[in-house]
């Protein structure tokens, strides 16, 4: 069974049609990239998947279960987590409290504690700053908090919206390495990125979005060689 199946999803803001009927899927354990220019509708798609925006039409299924009527706050319980664009950390909560928020819906205390340790192992810098207010962290550290917090929900599908945004190259590498590690651990990932090169290198398959529609799709290695992709997104 597919992890995520999206069928003819449309999102609009008033009379602005941001997403105009997109269909795609993510298989279990797969890392799928969604690339496209500014304003293509990538964030709108992810926010709608997470339930923050209503779908104008279309159908979203997570592991065969329809999410259409599931409110945003219950989607985590179904195994879906979103790291939103701009990170959305709780700036006046400490790093530890931010991570604990990820486990808000979980009752398995001892497992949660173990996973907290794992997140701190993955991001040792967060361990050092665990009692610091998250708003005082650097951009890269905040992105670590956002990813760590999403992992604390124990997702089966992780939606990442431009995790590299605004980060120095070294940090981008580190964040992408983390994403690769998470993917290896079996979590399915849908990665939205402006950095098409990196996204296509990391992912198995990819979709290209333009003006609210998916215009290209295929395995990432192939798309990396595709002339249209190279011209539009890889600066050739």
């Amino acid at each position, binding site marked *: 069974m597919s992890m995520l199946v999206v069928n003819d999803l449309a999102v609009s803001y008033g009379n602005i049609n941001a997403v105009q009927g997109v269909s795609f899927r993510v298989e279990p354990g797969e890392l799928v990239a969604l690339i496209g220019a500014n304003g293509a509708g990538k964030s709108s798609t992810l926010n709608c998947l997470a339930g923050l925006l209503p779908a104008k039409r279309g159908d979203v299924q997570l592991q065969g279960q329809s999410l259409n009527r599931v409110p945003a706050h219950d989607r985590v*319980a179904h195994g879906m987590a979103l790291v*939103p664009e701009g990170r959305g950390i709780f700036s006046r909560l400490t790093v530890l*409290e931010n991570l604990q*928020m990820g486990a*808000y819906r979980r009752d398995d205390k001892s497992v949660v504690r173990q996973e907290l340790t794992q997140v701190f192992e993955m991001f040792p810098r967060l361990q050092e700053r665990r009692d610091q207010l998250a708003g005082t962290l650097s951009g890269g550290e905040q992105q670590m908090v956002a990813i760590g917090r999403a992992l604390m929900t124990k997702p089966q599908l992780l939606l990442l919206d431009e995790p590299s945004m605004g980060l120095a190259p070294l940090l981008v590498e580190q964040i992408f390495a983390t994403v690769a590690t998470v993917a290896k651990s079996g979590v399915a990932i849908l990665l939205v990125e402006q950095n098409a090169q990196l996204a296509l290198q990391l992912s198995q398959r990819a979709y290209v979005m333009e003006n609210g529609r998916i215009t290209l799709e295929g395995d990432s290695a192939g798309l990396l060689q595709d002339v249209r992709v190279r011209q539009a997104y890889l600066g050739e």
Partner: protein
Amino acid sequence: MDIFVQQLFNGIILGSIYALIALGYTMVYGILGLINFAHGEVVMIGAMVTITLLRILVEMNTGLPAAALVALAITTALPLCALLGFTLERVAYRPLRNAPRLSPLITAIGLSIILQNLAMIIWGRNYAPFPPILDTTPWKILGAAITPLQVVIVILAVAIMAGLWLLIGRTRKGRAMRAVAQNPNAARLMGVNVDGIISLTFVLGSSLGCIAGVMVAANYGQAHATMGFMLGLKAFAAAVLGGIGNLAGAMIGGLLLGLIESFGAGYIGDLTGGFLGSQYQDVFAFLVLILVLVFRPSGLMGERVAERA
């Protein structure tokens, strides 16, 4: 010296009551950016319902000690006020959540007027006396008088505030409340039912308000259908003084305002050569409000009011 100590006591008593009410304003503001002007009426209804129940209990001649009667009355009034706060949010504020900021504000003022008039229909225009069952023989401490009731008021207020502090600072629900106040959508992504947290905030604030209302009624020996107006405004001034949206600010602002009022009323006669008397007590709250708004709009502990307003 005696007067000084007396005003200090009065200020602390008054201040702890203001603080309890101010917390209701500040919690709601912190989470919704809304000034719930009907909060003072919740305080009033807490007082009126408790008095009504107390009268019935006294007439029943239960033989229970006075403290037990008051406790019994409060345990009925408390859920009622909580329900009232819950309902106000559900029915009046929630539908306006995405409306321009002026709409919920006007609604709040409208609700306040409705509740006040409703209370007048139910309880009349006269003062409702608090049944004289509590011991009001004052103790003399450092030359000043303080009644056992007043000591209980202060201790109870401090205990409630400590409890609230722990709830919000240390528990999972409290963490979720702070998260929702900072970033509701991110909180949703963590699985927090934001509407539920908002309801909880109203329930908590209204419960504190109810207890504060009973304290006022017990302390002054009476309550009135319009008492919520001035109390609400003053507690609002206290919340602004502390920095609206900030819990510690509401507590400190409440206490400070109580002290300012009490010392102001105590010494205004001396300061103005007898020209103004202690009946001008109410002026201080608004003087404070204006001064804070002019010189430090974010309040003593506040951070970012400007960005929200």
